């Protein structure tokens, strides 16, 4: 069959809401788009462990420490689910890691912001995981089978992440005036970067139209961002904090909140490597990877040795 013909059949299959599986024929551009998106999603899960890992040794109680550890361990798991989904498209783990280390692959810009106080751990779980959930719930319906199944698994685990973060924020917001101020400060710093997580406006998003046609993406950046704002405003009110946006206002007619414009200069600046922590995040990842090299080698040598003794 000609490629053109195959492509028509492929699109019909997608339009019928049938999932695409690894061995199915797919346009090269579809495969490429998925490898880019899934690997960057995986990198985000893994790099995202760093800002939270920063507080494990200083968590204020044993309870919060075991919770934070479990949460971060989940994120490592999410990274692995996603790498494994990407590998079904014919890319190797090595290639993906190299792309990250050589800065050819990106990860979510949110993780280039520092976690300065314990309240930031609350803000990250509540807002950053909250925004990720909105995106991932939508991606459960993505057209590529392994990606979709990974998303279903991840979504089951995420709600604990968001609740533990919100619990920290609620707790601090009811504490001393200093603690409440700390919670507000964390909200102030993480609110806008959280909205940026959904990416540029649909009109400015290079990959959006194709991804929608192929049903890799099921809702647009702006639709998802609106969903996140709509559900978060009430949660902010309940704990008595204020969203740092003077233009935030309920729009009766639309049935949605209006909100101010994102500082896109900041977004592109952080994406292109100039955020507060870009260098630190990447060099830490490289260091951890290199420091683990002997473990990988030793385990391999041990496996070889055992195989020999079985054969002997």
């Amino acid at each position, binding site marked *: 069959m000609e490629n053109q013909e195959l492509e028509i059949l492929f699109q019909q299959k997608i339009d019928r809401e049938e999932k695409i599986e690894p061995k199915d*024929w797919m346009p090269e551009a579809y495969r490429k788009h998925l490898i880019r998106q899934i690997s960057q999603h995986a990198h985000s899960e893994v790099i995202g462990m760093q800002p939270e890992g920063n507080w494990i040794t200083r968590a204020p109680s044993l309870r919060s420490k075991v919770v934070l550890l479990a949460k971060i361990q989940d994120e490592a798991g999410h990274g692995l689910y996603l790498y*494994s989904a990407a*590998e079904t498209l014919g890319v190797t783990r090595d290639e993906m890691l*190299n792309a990250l280390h050589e800065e050819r692959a990106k990860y979510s810009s949110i993780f280039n912001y520092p976690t300065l106080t314990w309240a930031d751990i609350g803000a990250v779980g509540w807002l950053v995981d909250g925004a990720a959930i909105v995106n991932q719930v939508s991606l459960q319906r993505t057209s590529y089978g392994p990606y979709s199944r990974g998303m279903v698994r991840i979504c089951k*685990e995420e709600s604990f992440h968001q609740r533990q973060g919100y619990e920290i924020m609620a707790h601090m917001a009811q504490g001393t005036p200093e603690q409440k101020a700390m919670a507000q400060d964390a909200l102030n710093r993480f609110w806008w970067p959280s909205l940026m997580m959904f990416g540029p406006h649909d009109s400015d998003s290079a990959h959006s139209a194709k991804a929608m046609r192929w049903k890799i993406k099921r809702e647009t950046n702006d639709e998802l961002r609106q969903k996140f704002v709509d559900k978060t405003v009430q949660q902010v009110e309940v704990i008595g904090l204020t969203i740092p946006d003077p233009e935030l206002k309920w729009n009766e007619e639309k049935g949605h909140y209006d909100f101010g414009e994102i500082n896109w200069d900041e977004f592109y600046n952080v994406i292109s490597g100039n955020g507060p922590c870009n260098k630190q995040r990447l060099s830490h990842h490289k260091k951890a990877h290199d420091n683990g090299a002997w473990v990988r080698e030793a*385990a*391999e040598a041990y*496996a070889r040795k055992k195989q020999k003794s079985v054969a002997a």
Partner: protein
Amino acid sequence: MSKQDNQWPLWEVFIQSKTGLPYKHAGSVHAPDKEMALQNARDVYTRRSEGTSIWVVLSDNIVASNPDDQEAFFDPANDKVYRHPTFYVMPEGAKHI
């Protein structure tokens, strides 16, 4: 590729969520041998007691049908409606059959 940095062979992971139920594919892990493949599969795919039992299989050892041949491959079953109970005409009034 930068330096040679083996990520170990790939294993497919199958999990039985409860005794009596069939094993279901969960995803894959990298591991140097079968013991570590099992341990990695446990850590990655059953952090919330999602399983009572795990199988790991080297991905290379899995043989899969080709989706391009799907029609021809499954064709033999298509004209054998007599394999289904609805094919048979039961006498009027017969019960529990």
